[in-house]
């Protein structure tokens, strides 16, 4: 049962990582235009840095 001492923190840590990623995405406006973002990857023009 000692394995629990590793497994539980790992499972909670992984879940927390997912939660943090979601919170980051939410606060960084990643869900503002999902339809546009899906279309944008088909663009042929590249940019070297993100737009303002």
């Amino acid at each position, binding site marked *: 049962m000692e394995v629990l001492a590793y497994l539980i923190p790992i*499972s909670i840590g992984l879940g927390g990582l997912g939660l943090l990623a979601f919170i980051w995405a939410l606060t960084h406006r990643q869900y503002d235009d999902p339809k546009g973002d899906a279309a944008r990857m088909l663009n042929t023009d590249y940019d070297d840095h993100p737009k303002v």
Partner: protein
Amino acid sequence: MVPAIMTTAADPHPQPMSAAACPACILTPDAARLARAVSAAQQPALREHLIVSVPGMHCAGCISTVERGLERLDGVRAARVNLGLKRVMVDAAPGLQLSDIITHLANLGYEAHELDADALGPEQNDPEGRALLMRLAVSFFAMMNVMLLSVAVWSGAEDATRDLFHWISAAIALPTLAFAGQPFFASAGAALRAGRLGMDVPISLALLLSGGLSLYETVAGGHQAYFDAGVMLCFFLLAGRYLDYRSRSVARSAAQELSALEVPRATRLDDGVAQEVAIAALAVGDIVRVRPGGRMPVDGTVIRGESELDRGLLTGETRPVQASPGSIVCAGEINLTGPLDLQVTAAGQDSSLARMTALVALAESGRDRYRSLADRAARVYAPLVHLLALAAFGFWLWHSDGDVRLALNIAVAVLLITCPCALGLAVPAVVTTASGKLFRKGFLIKTSTALERLAGVDTVVFDKTGTLTLGLLQPLGLDQHRPDDLALALALAQGSGHPLAQALTQALQARNIIPTVLCDITELPGHGIQATADGKIVRLGRADWVGAEPPAGTASFLQTPRGDICTFGFADHLRPGAVQAVAALQAQGLQVHLISGDNAHAVADFAQRLGITQWQANALPTQKAARVAAMQANGQHVLMMGDGLNDTAALATADVSIAPGSGLDAARVAADIVFLGQDLAPLSDALRLARQSRRRILQNFAMAAVYNMIAVPLALAGLASPLAAAAAMSLSSISVSLNALRLR
């Protein structure tokens, strides 16, 4: 600060060098960019964010064309397309005119409209929705982790392992409940302060008690903890909240966009120089110019110009009204033929438009009397749940000779099991599904209870102009006229922007009539068009100007070279699907009424075409509202559909109201539902869907009741374990959601 900006702005859009590009071509845009960067560096604080609606964008190619195209425009620093909203956010240097952007987009092949940022509101980032989503995500994370640990406890973990798992669960669940439960605690607090028992009071109590008791059990090394049930309850109820919020915010933002398309600007003449200003900046005594086709921004007196006015949105009349110096005009009327200069007599809050809108706001507060199904159920349910839990607590306290812990455990189990999941999730699930389906048919449901009210409707009242009609006139009986008269009429009508003349032109061109050749065509605003044919004067215009008897209906008159007069009668274009919609409503057993501000002749003719037997003409705005109120006093549930300012009072009085998207802003604000489509046929479908969704909601209540009847006795008897509570709760939540999805 300036150097920093210079370095980043010197080459804001690096492009791969093309071998074919000549040095000049590369140099020129660079120079322009540099100039742009310098001017931006001089006034860094004065950047403007402009929002333009571009409904025609639909693919990756469009995004690229629009963004790159706009960035080539001088003064544009960056452009970002939002494909979901069909908008472009333009980051522009000050001084760039919106009209430049719109013309530029038109050159690129995209129709664009300015959006008023104020009307869109500050909610563009949607903080409320985001906060809800955040709480939902946190409670989901907690639910999954706590459940994982709980499963281990249920399957037989004992002693130190069980205690450890309970402690970890507590460490996850308690902060989660404190954070994610806030919407429930806040509204429960508000309800208690107001002296009511809402749905949120038992929810909050269940969340708090389950958390508190489980913590106590954990400290005491007990066998049972309800952390999983508490967190799961929180998650399911938040899901319901979020669904409810989403469905309304989609409708609200679409309605806001409609309002934002009407930018409140006016042309003010300052010592004869025309200047675009915000309507809010106009003051009494200012001179304002209104172009043909424009809407009066203020109340005023005409001081220069001759024209005709369309008062349809204010009074429901289709016939244009003459305007000349000295005439009084009201905000909201549309100028038809010639430019008019007005002296402002009342602006902003004092204008008649604003006064009528304020009246509507007053009438609307009276509608709060409707209590939603969920509210009504909660009013019975909440006290019952509390009493049950209290009774269970009292009974077990007495039965076990003062074992507070056992009694509390059972009381919490009762509270958790009876917690109004069905009310919290079942209603939003149905409403969201139905709103989504209606949205695709063109109906925006603005208020949360509109669907329920729509289901109870047994009487439908229509306005005529702009609602059952498109507000476009169509010439009648063209075959009665001689072909050469028609050719002459076309030649004259072509030269005018008057709606009657344009309707005539369209109808005649559709018949492939070749216009007569005329000389000296002149338009006299407010009267008609005049020209010379074979040395004789011919005219097309108003009755008194041409020399005819004033007509009963809407008509235009042609004076031929022979000296006699032809009459062209007009009738309003029926909205497509209007006949089917009225027939379908009548087939469903609903009473259909037509109440219009137009004259009796036009209304009677129209009612006959649609097969409506109950109609009323020449109705004043107050009469419309009074008529609707009289029907309600008679026990009828009225659906009002109207588009104009004269309908707003009736819209606000009716049980539920629909305004077409083409209507006046005030009407759309007053209505519960905005109809975006042209074709009226889906109306009966919407009513059917509303009735169906009401049935689903009631079914969901029944399912929840059955589930409670089974589970509550078990909980009262002290037989419900945390596992049973968790299983029963998720089962009922899933079954009510699936039932909601059955809507067709």
